[in-house]
């Protein structure tokens, strides 16, 4: 593994830097999703800089843990985190969504080493994790499979088909993380298509469910540690996150689900994030 463990403070700082990168990328791209990637920055920082067994210099390392992104529209956070982790140079982030870029608007596995799946159309990540887990079982192989999925995408029937299968086959090397930010394109999830009682639903499908503050990096790391200790059951971490986290005018507003900031908004957002970064660093000193 290339990354040595960092302190929680360092991780918080890093997550904030990643948020700044996300704002810059989206402003430059002129299209894309803002709220989800910002909300997921802490989870992705925790994954790439603490939880995952991976090597940015060897993206196809056979012993690596697998991270599937099911809600592909949130991929800017993955790109930004991968760049910080050393998969590619940060300058490439500015090619997001441009012709010829490896950083497609929605992730394409074949374009960029380090991506494990091609996604965008929702509801398929968990099924692919199930297939991978079944294959590992057949081969007596043990690797962890992490799946980041949205809450809105759980309107998809395919998600629950996978949930049922993972429960049946006790696929305990799967640790799924639901980005429970309560928004989707048409509005709040509970207005568009109520998901609650989400915890009870996953439990009823045979999953071990943990609930955490998804913007608390320590909590994310701890939940994954707990999740890995669960045997005989797949694990669902319902991570309550703030959509648009870190940018005041984006937080909790579903209108920011599917659009990028314009220049003026980006300047404002970056100013807020820099102030936040200063706060994180001063707390540490």
């Amino acid at each position: 593994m290339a990354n040595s463990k960092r302190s929680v403070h360092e991780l918080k700082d890093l997550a904030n830097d990643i948020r700044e990168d996300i704002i810059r990328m989206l402003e430059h791209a002129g299209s894309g999703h803002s709220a989800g990637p910002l909300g997921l920055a802490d989870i992705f920082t925790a994954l790439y800089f603490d939880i995952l067994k991976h090597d940015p210099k060897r993206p196809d390392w056979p012993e690596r843990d697998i991270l599937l992104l099911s809600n592909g529209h949130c991929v800017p956070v993955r790109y930004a985190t991968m760049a910080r982790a050393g998969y590619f140079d940060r300058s490439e982030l500015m090619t997001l969504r441009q012709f010829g870029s490896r950083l497609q608007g929605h992730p394409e596995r074949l374009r960029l080493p380090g991506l494990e799946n091609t996604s965008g159309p929702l509801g398929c990540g968990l099924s692919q994790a199930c297939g991978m887990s079944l294959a590992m079982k057949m081969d007596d192989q043990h690797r962890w499979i992490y799946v980041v999925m949205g809450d809105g995408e759980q309107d998809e029937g395919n998600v629950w088909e996978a949930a049922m299968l993972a429960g049946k086959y006790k696929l305990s090397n799967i640790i799924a993380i639901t980005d429970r930010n309560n928004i989707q394109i048409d509005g709040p999830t509970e207005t568009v298509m109520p998901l609650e009682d989400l915890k009870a639903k996953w439990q009823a499908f045979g999953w071990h469910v943990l609930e955490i503050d998804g913007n608390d990096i320590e909590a994310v790391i701890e939940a994954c540690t707990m999740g890995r200790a669960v045997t005989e059951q797949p694990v669902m971490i319902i991570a309550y996150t703030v959509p648009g986290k870190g940018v005041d005018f984006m937080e909790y507003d579903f209108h920011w689900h599917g659009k990028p900031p314009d220049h003026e908004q980006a300047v404002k957002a970056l100013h807020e994030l820099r102030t936040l970064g200063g706060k994180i660093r001063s707390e540490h000193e």
Partner: protein
Amino acid sequence: MSELGVLSVTDNLEKEPIRKGFGKGLLAAGQANTAVVAACADLTESTQMNLFKEAFPERFVEIGVAEQNLVTVASGLAAMGKIPFVSSYAAFSPGRNWEQIRTTICLNDRPVKLVGSHAGVSVGPDGATHQMLEDLGLMRVLPNMVVIAPCDSVEAAKATQAMAVHPQPNYIRLAREATPIITSANTPFRIGAAYVYREGSDISLFATGTMTYQALKAAEKLKDDGIYAEVVHVPTIKPLDVATIVQSLKKTGAAITVEEGQINGGLGSAIAETIAENHPVPLIRIGMADRFGESGQPEELLDHFGLNAKHIRLAAQHILKGKTR
């Protein structure tokens, strides 16, 4: 028996469902390579996966009635180096799960082997809901996908084994009813190749799946009309063997396509495109003409919808009248 080991349709031919050949082929593929695995959506015996399941229970996954999950789980199996064969009725897979196939298998380039059984109106009494007619079109438009429709159980076994060593995603179409066995152990099969099963000079009959037998029968009858029909069996609809097809077109100057599915999007469309781009000749497409099937016995349905030797013969007579005008 012809040079290619194709039997004469005037003989008393043995019959077997095409799906049986798949079952045998999958077992053989499983014996040849431990990476071959199988998954089914609650139709293990109907789709003839039971032979494999009994031989390799640890390499078989029961998915339940969940076709979207069937193919996405297969994408994950393939990601870990497995060669997954996944089966259901064609109406459900690839009928229901097309987008998952597009994104997680074709665009994601995972060599999943899709098996759609019970295709065509010859499914019979189950009726229109279960008579899949659009699968060839649905799969043919997908980049990276290979589309195969064997003509009998012997060819189905060979095709299945060829799929197991082919690097791309594949779709194979199977039929429910017993179909006359027209090929033999020596008959060649290669993914991407079409074969001239019967030589002729007046018209080319391009047929796939269950309809190749009917085309051979029609060619035999057309002899009585003084018409020498060439029968080209097209087991791979994509990639299409353009060279063999164009060669036949140049020789005969007229064409009929025959398939047990929609003429829009399937073999008929594929050949029409080839004709238009390479060697324009008169063409009649025989198949389901933009309509659904219904309940009935296979034979009566095939006759009702014009999918047998009798109708192929009439079409050939008609097209040749125009050709000699």
